[in-house]
Structures are given as C-alpha cells and as structure tokens.
C-alpha cells in the first residue's frame, strides 16, 4: 500500500492538484513515526512511510494546514475520516482545500505492548504472517501480532471511510465491535469499586495535556484549562480533585463530538484508559437519545445541541441497578 500511496502522492504533486501532502515520516527506529507535511517528490521518496506503526491520526493537523494557501493531500484511515468529517462539520477544516485519499486502516501496532513483554533494544519489527519477528540487540524474539495491537484498533468500530475523494484499497464496513465491553464491566461494579478504579487510574495523570492536544475534537484556540480567567486553569494536578475535574470536563467538552478515535489513550504516557470516559458518554447518548456516531456525516445535529420534548429525566441515573 505504501508504494501505491507514494506513487499517487507524487502524481498529484506533479500535476499541481495538491501543493502539500500530509502523511507520516520515518524515524530513528522502526516505530517512532512522526506526522509530517511533504512538499516534494524527493522528500516523499526518502521519508514517507505507511506501515504497522503509522497509527497517528493526522486529521487535526488539517485545521492548521487548511488555513494556509493551497490544497493538501491527506491520507486518512477509516477512523481518521470520522474525525475529519467532524472537523468539517464544525467548520474547522476547509473541505475544499483537502484532497482525501482513504487508505486501509489498522490494526496498527503499539510499541509499548511489545516493550511490556520485556523486549528491549528493539532494532526492527517485522510482521511475518501475523507473528512479529523482533530483532533486538539481545537477539531475535517473536510474539503474536494480535498481542501487540493498539487498544484503539483492537476495538475498531468501523473499516468504512465516511469521506474520501479516492480510495487506495478496499472500503470496509462498520463493524459490530465490542468497544463498550469495558464500560459495561465498570457500570456493573459497585460505586466504590468504580471510584477505586478511577482513582487508581487518574492518580497516574501528570497533566501533560497530550490527550487534549492530540484530540481532534479539542480544537479550541484557547482551552478553558489554559485561560487564567476561567478560574480552573491549572498546570498540574495539585489535588486528586483536579485530576478528576480535568478529565471529567475534557470528556464532557467532547461529548457528542468525540468520534472514538482512541488517540487520547494511545498517547497517554501513563497508560490511562481515557477513551473509557468518552465511550461512556457515547454509550449513554446511544442508549438515551438514539444511536449517534459523531463524524459519520456532516449534517446531523449533535446530541448535545439537540433535544426532544420527551427526553428522559436525569433521575434515570439514580434508578440504575447497582449503587
């Protein structure tokens, strides 16, 4: 697929259809891939990469890119197309300035999961028929491909591109995923158990803001947590309350807009399962206000900017089974 992408990117650059290409750039090692903008065929030839580690969602970069002159070619995986659509819907991306090529999605690999197996000194990772052959300074190791798949890919919601100008490879379908499994498991715990679970997780937070800054739904020019006049601006979780507040408010601010792309959990240096908060909102919205997938289209009203006269009362929360 990488060859086809490079070929197409160079064609489109050469005939002037696009001025820039946004994709991924090779790093020092086999896995440290950086999103990058390419402007020439030479750059693409030497650095462009699309492989098992190109998990980064590039759609948020298009907010800045479409503010510049000229047209940009973006390679979007199915999950990225949802984020892209949502940003178009919110008028953050100028659709006219982007040429979207849909590419096949994951599953992509999580280097941290490989390292968690005690594998270190990694020189290369090769997928040989769904067994990873990992060359290291300390010799060759193998592990099953599926044990190293990113969490966000393991619970993939859709292989369908909701927006594209052309496709490389096949388009897939919306999947019947198990993505709410963990949310359900937590819902069935007692309140104390849930509290302990989240305290344990959120206490790891170092407030690096990676989750916020990578999130394609977080595109505010000035975040409420950076605004000294909001009264809640803070740079460090000085108290457990602030850890909770940051994540509750952040999840709330993207509720109904979060496409469940899973980037927040992918980038968290402390492995906090932040996507569970977003999924809880998605699950609630689906159950209480009807199925809704943010980013699936650019026209429907978002659940939190909409209402019906016979919506349920908040007392549904109090009437749930387990306390």
């Amino acid at each position, binding site marked *: 697929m990488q060859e086809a992408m490079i070929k197409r990117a160079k064609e489109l650059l050469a005939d002037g259809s696009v001025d820039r290409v946004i994709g991924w750039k090779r790093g020092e090692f086999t896995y440290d891939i950086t999103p990058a903008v390419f402007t020439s065929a030479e750059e693409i030839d030497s650095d462009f990469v699309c492989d098992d580690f190109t998990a980064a969602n590039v759609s948020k970069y298009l907010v800045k890119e479409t503010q510049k002159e000229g047209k940009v070619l973006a390679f979007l995986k199915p999950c990225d197309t949802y984020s892209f659509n949502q940003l178009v819907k919110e008028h953050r991306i100028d659709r006219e300035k982007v040429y979207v090529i849909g590419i096949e999605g994951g599953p992509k690999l999580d280097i941290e999961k490989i390292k968690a197996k005690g594998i270190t000194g990694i020189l290369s990772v090769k997928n040989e028929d769904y067994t990873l052959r990992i060359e*290291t300074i300390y010799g060759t190791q193998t592990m099953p491909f599926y044990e190293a798949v990113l969490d966000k890919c393991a619970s993939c919601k859709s292989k369908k591109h909701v927006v594209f100008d052309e496709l490389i490879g096949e388009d897939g379908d919306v999947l019947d995923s198990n993505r709410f499994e963990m949310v359900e498991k937590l819902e069935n715990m007692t309140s104390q158990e849930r509290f302990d679970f989240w305290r344990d997780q959120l206490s790891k937070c170092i407030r690096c803001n990676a989750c916020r800054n990578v999130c394609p739904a977080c595109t505010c020019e000035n975040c409420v947590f950076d605004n*000294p006049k909001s009264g809640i601006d803070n740079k460090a979780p000085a108290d457990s309350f602030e850890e909770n507040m940051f994540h509750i408010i952040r999840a709330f601010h993207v509720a109904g807009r979060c496409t469940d792309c899973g980037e927040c959990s992918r980038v968290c240096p402390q492995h906090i399962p932040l996507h569970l908060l977003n999924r809880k909102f998605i699950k609630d919205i689906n159950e209480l206000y009807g199925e809704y997938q943010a980013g699936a289209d650019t026209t429907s009203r978002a659940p939190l900017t909409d209402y019906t006269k016979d919506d349920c009362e908040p007392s549904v929360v109090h009437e749930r089974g387990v306390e």
Partner: protein
Amino acid sequence: MQKISKAKLYELFDDIASKQTLYIPTDREAGAAEYRKYESGMKLTKELNTVRSAKDFFFPQTENLAEFKIDGKNIEVRDIREECEDFVIFGVRACDAKSFTILDKVFLCEPVDSFYKNRRDHGTVVTMACKRPAETCFCKTFGIDPTVPGGDVSCFDDGESIFFLANTDKGEKFVESISSFLEDGDTDKLMEVQTRAREIMGRLPLAKLSTENFGGDKLNEYFNSDKWAELSEACLGCGTCTFVCPTCQCYDIKDFNTGHGIKRFRCWDSCMYSDFTKMAHGNPRLTQLERFRQRFMHKLVYFPANNDGEFGCVGCGRCLAKCPISMNIVKVMKALEAK
C-alpha cells in the same frame, strides 16, 4: 567490594525501611515502572527505568511554598516549610543520578532554593548500574558511563549479588548503616558483566550520537536554523517530553484559594505550553516553533553556555519513548547537524 546476596536483598530493604523511608522502582503494570514507597512484599522492577524520572523526589510536580491568611486589608504570610525526613532512593539509573547534578546547578546556585535543598540534603541516592540498555539509551553521548552510575552509593549487579560502593560521605554513612548485611565479595564476575554491558553500549543504535557540534557557542548558528519549522511542525504542544524529562526544571507559581486562605504552590511548567511566556501585552514566543526551539536550544546551547559546557540532557531516552508524535532531542540534534 562489599556485597549482599540477591536472596537477602529484600531483608535489607525491610531493614532500611524500618529506619527511614525507602523508595524503589517497582512495576505498576507490565512495562511501566514507577518509584514507590517500599513496603514488605514489594518487588523491584525488571524494567530498565521508570516512566517518570526520579526528579520528583527533589523537585515534586507540585509543592506548597507558602500560605496566606487574609483579614480585611491585612495579609499574614505563613512559612510552612518543615525539615524533610531522611529518605533513600534505591535503584536510580546513571542518567537520573546525573540529572540531579544538573538540577543542582539550577536550584543550588544563589539564591539557593531551600525547598529543593531540604530534600536534597535528606535524600540518599543509591544507584544501580545498567546491564541491559534499551535502543533509546544515549547517555554515553553526554559522557555518562551507565555501568558506573554515581549518586551517593553505586550498586552493581553481577547476577547473584549486589555490590555497594560509597561515593560520598552520605553514601559512606549509608553503607555503614547496612554493614551488618554486607560481606566482602569477589568482583571478577562483576567486571565481566561490566565489560559486556559496555560492549552493548557501543552497539546501540544511538551510540554514535555526539555533542561535538553543540554547546554554548552555537547560539546564532542554530537559533536561526531553517530546520526548526520542519521539526516543530508536528509538535502537539503538550508537555509530555518536559514532564518525563529528568532535567526539565521550569516551574510555575500559582495561588489557590481554599476558601479559608490562599495556598501558594509551585508546579512543573512546560516551555511547550502556549501560555508559558504569555503576558498581558503579548507573547514573545507566539507559535509552536519558538516554543519547540526554546526547549532544545535550552538543553543543547543555553544550558552549556551558562554551565561550563554541561548539557541539559542525560540521554535517558524517555522523550524518545513517550512523545506522542515521536519527535525528540535525537532527531533535533541530527537534523541541526546535517548541513
């Protein structure tokens, strides 16, 4: 050298912990280690290093500086400092141990930061030599030998025993205090382990990375480099690199109104944040390019310019592993060097 058999190590930990607080690196989950207060039954991690650096012990993410009581027009300032209790950090890697000396240059120069000094005075750093460096390691670039890790006491693991070597007075005292657990040991095997580790260091992917093109005299050369735009393009402006970095020491001072007083605290801050230098009348670092440049210029040029050529990086590799977009100091160094 004095040693203890690995089988008896936890007995030693129990003993140390009965006298003062002991912190050891332990697994929080597979692949993620952190320093925790030792309690019986806790096991040392097999990971090379912790996710967060050890700087927290001396420069915690948040700490209270003072308290204020406000009564009408009057303010009362309360000095809430207390003498810190003695503590021991076990298993610090050479890179982190070196980071303390870099932090010392900032916090212990005049005017001395008493909050930092208080902790530094009461903490004993027991380091552990590296045997299995990771591909992201490049401490050698900054002149660190991870097989001789420094700190107050250096520890070496030859597979069967842990050897203790005191480097400072504080270290001597510590080794003295645990002498009943130690016996004299033969270091032949240890030398083998060391030689092998050094040999691996030489084969690491980043082994050839050098600082020769960097230093305090390179300010104008690199500040105006046209590489910054490309390098900073993908930067998210998050603070992951700064917060996992053992040498990043920028902080913010903030007030919190508790409803019955004001707590003034300081917390880590990141030069990558958009409001880091924002003032009422403007911001000298308006775009991510300037902020990104600041971080790397500080480590590679400004810091050595102010500190006799010492670099503000120890090559621990945390930013390589943790940056959400995998942009890091190694890529920056290589890009700037390329003519």
